[in-house]
């Protein structure tokens, strides 16, 4: 009885084929309606892994951009502060020169110069205590509100404030208060104080020493400023590359996850056509039997 065919064997086969056909349709419908070709890990284990890692990379790069923005805030605060501090040192230098050149000036005019130097000193301390988001930008990681006390003594610490702005790329976004303003007897505050004292006491040697001190202090500030500028550039570049990477990753994620719309729609059309054909054929095949022809 090989190749015997019965109504129920046709029924079984046709049903199985229709079922397979409609299952394929369901898969395509799922992909189209979700817009994703990977809806569960079994759709593509490797694609799932890639998608998870790419999402991780998206978030990491977002984090880099946020950290870079924060870093730029710190660095531009530093930049502004250091530029103003440098200008102040220039001003102090010209006042000191004024004091030196006009050695025979009256005590009043020297006192006036000294008073302005005192002003500069306190402004300088103000600059040195500049804060960004309530943290002193020259104070390292200190929890105090200030990096320098009223006398110009450094009370912060010299640990860097670090931002991670790329894979394995860390940048210091604060400036070392000691490096910029000096500490103790070599600090710019002490130099200004000495100049003020020298002016009041008409101490020419002291003024000369003060001039040298201001030279060093100015250089320190400029060095710090150029370093800050260089870091600002680096952070800007890294931020740009993190943003670029973000676009790349998004595109890759879309490649891995999203459906190829034209292809999927074509697939669906094909599937629907073949399903309808199968249905029509089944309807025709199943109906007739000998009963229809025996009269």
């Amino acid at each position, binding site marked *: *009885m090989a*190749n*015997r*065919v*019965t*109504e*129920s*064997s046709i*029924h*079984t*086969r046709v049903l*199985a084929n229709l079922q*397979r056909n409609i299952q394929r349709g369901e898969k395509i419908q799922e992909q189209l309606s979700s817009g994703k070709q*990977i809806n*569960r*890990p*079994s*759709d*593509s*284990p*490797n694609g*799932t*892994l890639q*998608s*998870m*890692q790419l*999402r*991780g990379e998206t*978030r*990491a790069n*977002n*984090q880099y951009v*946020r*950290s870079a923005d*924060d870093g730029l805030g710190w660095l531009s605060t530093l930049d502004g502060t250091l530029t103003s501090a440098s200008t102040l040192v220039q001003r102090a230098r010209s006042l000191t020169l004024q004091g030196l050149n006009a050695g025979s000036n009256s005590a009043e005019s020297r006192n006036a110069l000294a008073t302005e130097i005192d002003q500069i000193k306190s402004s300088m301390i103000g600059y040195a205590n500049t804060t960004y*988001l*309530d*943290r002193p930008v020259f104070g*390292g*990681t*200190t*929890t105090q509100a200030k990096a320098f006390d009223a006398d110009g003594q450094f009370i912060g*610490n010299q*640990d860097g*404030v*670090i*931002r*991670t702005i790329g*894979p394995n790329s*860390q940048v210091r976004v604060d400036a070392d208060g000691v490096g910029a303003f000096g500490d103790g007897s070599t600090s710019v505050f002490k130099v200004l104080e000495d100049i003020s004292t020298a002016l009041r006491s008409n101490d020419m040697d002291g003024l000369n020493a003060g001039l040298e001190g201001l030279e060093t202090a100015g250089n320190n500030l400029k060095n710090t400023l150029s370093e800050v500028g260089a870091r600002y550039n680096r952070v800007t570049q890294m931020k740009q590359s993190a943003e670029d990477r973000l676009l790349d990753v998004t595109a890759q994620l879309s490649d891995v*996850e999203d459906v190829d719309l034209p292809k999927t729609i074509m697939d669906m059309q094909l599937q629907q056509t073949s399903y309808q054909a199968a249905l029509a054929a089944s309807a025709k095949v199943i109906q007739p*039997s*000998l*009963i229809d022809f*025996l009269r």
Partner: protein
Amino acid sequence: MASSFGSINTALTSLYAQRRGLDVAGQNIANATTEGYTRQRVDMQAQVGSTVGVRWATTDGLGTGVAVTDVQRLRDQYLENRGRTEHANSAYLSNQAAAYTSLEDVFAEPSSTALQAQMHDMWAAWGDVGDEPTSVAARSALLQQSSVVAEGLNSAYGSLDSQWSANASQLTKYASEINTAAGTIAQLNDSIVKAKATGVVVNELEDRRDLAVMKLSELIGATASVRSDGSMDVYVGNALLVNRTTTRPMTATAGVSTLDAQRDYNADPTNGTRSAGLTWSDTGDTVQAGGTMGSMVDTMTTILPGMAEKLDKVAKTLVDTVNAATTSAYKTDGTAGTEFFTGDFSTGRYARNITVAITNPKDVAISAKNETNPDGTPKLDVNGNPIGTNDGSLATSLAGTATRVGSPDLVYQDMIADLGVNAQTSTRRSEIQVNVTAQVDAAREAESGVNLDEEMTNLLTYQRGYEAASRVLTTIDSMLDQLINRTGLVGR
């Protein structure tokens, strides 16, 4: 020389036989769509006259008509056995595929809201805290994100747990179904053996028995063999479930009853408990089940505990990584850091028990060092306490955990990739097996199903046969009429 009326009897046997043929064709057509019905065929045999040579015998060796010797049930035992095996395999594989599919649903990867995304958000929150150690908002956000991850792990483990319990209760129901079905088969065996002994045709009973055995094959992978007296023995594994008219009950409640207990058993099979699964009630031996129930037992003893193991590994790595950082760190006020995640990990159930230990945002310890004097000794305040810093380097370092070797993220990704591969494999195997099963079913239907064309042809044949036999009867009748009424009337 045969008797004058012998031929009438010959025609009569034909009338009987054609009627029987019509009846059977009618029965076949009536049951054309009945599930499990096997087409029947009338076996006719020409009746011979006396074949024993006897002196003075008057036989002419001609046959004396037709007899229905049997109504055959056209079912191929080989195909039937094959069908049972394929149905059992198909049931096993589709249950495995369903188990993996629901595991995929538990984790719902890949998505921008599932556990992996939650972990990414948590690492990003660590990064924010590292950037702004003074921000209470960033710290609160970190605690929130970390709670989300911890709860995500808790609920994933809970889902595994409830999937295990659902399997266990379903298995118990199936076990009682098996016991009932076995009882039915034993009863049918009894009826069939008794009927066969008295020569009654029991094709319909045998159909019902085959249907019941097929159901057992799908549920538990049963196989069967028929004895010469017509009774059927049903095996599960190598053990008899139905032996003629006796059955052997099984139970699903002899083993452990929770996922955790099963994991304890897996870790130490000598701990005095029994693995979950099916056991014979009489001997307490394990039932070597296949089919749906076999798959459920495998899911309960291997797949779910394995998945729980991996999830625990993810949670453990997370706890170890974060706690190692925070316990070596200092808080902003200079005191030593404490554990970030906590829970009862004594039995290794990390995923089930993980919670965030810290409630006050300020207590998250992220700075690598306190203030130190130039000589390296800790700097102390007026009260002799250490002074903290706004260093966030440990948080920043934690923010980069995701891609580091041995990170919880990578462990989790491994787990999901494994799950994906297993789910894909089992779904594909199941699809292939469904096709094979459909082919075998079609072959079985081709063998034992009713073909209406064939039945119509048979109807036609039997009808014509009946008509012809009647004609033979009429012919003989008119012959006899000739002989009786119109013979010997010479001269009347």
